[in-house]
């Protein structure tokens, strides 16, 4: 009993330390974003006076004037498209890999792993040239394609593991019940693999949302520039003010969708959904 309590206390302390370590920069960011521009460098951790001026400046002037709204829309659309395409493609691929024996299966898996390990920086140069040549430079597609390249292997690996867990009999039962292979997949396998799909979706979304390297290299205007890249182009009120406050505010704003996304899907990422399918 005593030992249990002590262990519990030690764990609690450990968790608190990790939490503080992880959250202080975030709190700092929030604090900076809430300071009025004049007091940004006042050295206080907590703002003495709370102002939303930085946030207002982000959205000032509507879609045409604001340096932030268009990149935000770009970010959302690009990350969502990447996620949807990646999950659809990855679930088909993963399903085939988990269920079928076909020549080249190992090659596909090994290839996917190799691509995931490939340093993105080494592809940026060639992509820049290629995209300019074929007109994909500074377009949504120009970003979605490299994002898919790097996030698909991740999604495939996550989903293969998930599909393998689903008893094959369920699908056979569906087929005997009169389902086509596609119906068996969509009506039985997909609902059961939903937690895995949401997990993969979150991973892909975060990858695409957070990317800076491709965004800064393959875009040149607000036509397709995403938030992480656009932050680098923020300017202050005048050429003498540092844009620190608005960058902090923008950083807070782009963090919110991720938190919402995770919280929203977290409820679905419950394990044990397959409980009761087979003898327990």
């Amino acid at each position, binding site marked *: 009993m005593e030992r249990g309590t002590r262990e519990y206390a030690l764990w609690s302390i450990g968790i608190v330390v990790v939490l503080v370590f992880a959250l202080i920069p975030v709190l700092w960011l929030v604090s900076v974003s809430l300071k009025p521009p004049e007091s940004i460098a006042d050295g206080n951790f907590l703002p003495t006076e709370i102002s939303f001026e930085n946030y207002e400046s982000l959205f000032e002037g509507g879609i045409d004037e604001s340096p932030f709204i268009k990149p935000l829309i770009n970010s959302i659309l690009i990350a969502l498209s990447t996620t949807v395409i990646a999950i659809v493609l990855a679930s088909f691929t993963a399903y085939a890999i988990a269920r079928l024996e076909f020549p080249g299966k190992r090659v596909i898996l090994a290839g996917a792993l190799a691509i995931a390990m490939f340093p993105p920086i080494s592809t940026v140069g060639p992509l820049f040239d290629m995209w300019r040549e074929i007109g994909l430079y500074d377009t949504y597609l120009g970003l979605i394609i490299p994002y898919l390249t790097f996030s698909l292997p991740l999604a495939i690996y996550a989903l293969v593991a998930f599909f393998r867990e689903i008893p094959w009999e369920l699908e056979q*039962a569906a087929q005997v019940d009169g389902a086509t292979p596609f119906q068996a997949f969509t009506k039985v396998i997909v609902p059961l693999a939903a937690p895995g799909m949401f997990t993969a979706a979150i991973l892909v979304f975060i990858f695409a949302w957070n990317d800076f390297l491709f965004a800064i290299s393959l875009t040149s205007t607000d036509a397709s520039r995403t938030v992480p890249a656009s932050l680098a182009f923020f300017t202050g009120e005048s050429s003498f003010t540092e844009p620190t406050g608005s960058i902090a505010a923008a950083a807070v704003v782009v963090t919110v969708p991720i938190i919402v996304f995770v919280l929203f899907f977290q409820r679905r990422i419950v394990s044990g959904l397959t409980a009761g399918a087979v003898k327990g």
Partner: protein
Amino acid sequence: MAEITLDGITKVFPDGQEAVKQMDLEIGDGEFMILVGPSGCGKSTALRMIAGLEDITEGELKIGGEVVNDRAPKDRDIAMVFQNYALYPHMTVRGNMGFALKLAGVDSGEIDRKVEDAAETLDLTQHLDRRPANLSGGQRQRVAMGRAIVRDPKAFLMDEPLSNLDAKLRVQMRTEVARLQSRLETTTVYVTHDQVEAMTLGERVAVMRAGELQQVGPPAELYDEPRNLFVAGFIGSPAMNFMPAELHDGKVKLPIGEVEAPEGVRANGDGRVVAGLRPEAFEDAEIVGDLKQERGVVIEAEVDLVESLGSDLYAYFHVESEGVESEQLADLAEESIGETGAAGLREGEEQIVARLDPASRIKRRDRAQLWADTSKLHFFDPKSGDRLRPAS
């Protein structure tokens, strides 16, 4: 309603393993056919080929007179109950049972009516809106059955549907399944490794070994006239006792004594044979009257163990014998060694199980007089394992 015909059905897996060899079987309309055999004998593979879940390498499969070799499972109009039930965990009992009808485009009122009918038959009405995870093993099993019966398919295929239940529930569901089948009169193919289940359920039983059909017939026929050593040893519990025998001058010399060889066996000429005698052919000599004793032999043996089940009494004893060597029996030994406890025997001894009248007062370590009804002896060819029968 349909008959199922297997004509030379063969399954060879990609790794070269031949799971089912040239299987011919006719299952009549409305018949309850059991496929039974030890694990790995190909019975499940055969069933899965009928279902369409496994490709047929060779041969022809007909359901209701139509060749269905190349039809997808969904186009065969059959329902299957899986060993692990394979219920859809994300659907309620109602959803599980109505899934096939929904796929078939039946309107929802009709689905509800059929599902509720089936639920009533299976006593699941109050569980219709629960999910499989919240049901007991027996209830899950009934949902799996319900999913099959709502569709009113041409045939039911059941793959060891009761093997995940505990012993008591299994017996209860066994009668349930039999009653359901006789009421619906739907052609049913039922796979099991349990010969008791096979004997009690089936109208006809097909015994399989190593991918080959050994014998097909009504339970009583398999029991009384097994075609070979394997069937003789597999059907019946406790299993038939086997002992080596020597045929010479019209007499058979057995470890338990010498008897007159029956007509048909004598015709096979002198030589070694395998003799088999079921446990119930033995009796306590004290209980058997003198009159009956003339028909058999009386042996004296030390009783190793007595098991009293109330209605029956099993006495285990051993006789001097060099044992019976047969590939067919070796296949069975793996499964039965645990059951009979034959493992503790010394070289040169053969264990015999006798089923005696519970009134017998035989005790462990007694030297008892046991009578054996030698008219019930079966004789087999030691090489082929085939039963030697009267030449007709």
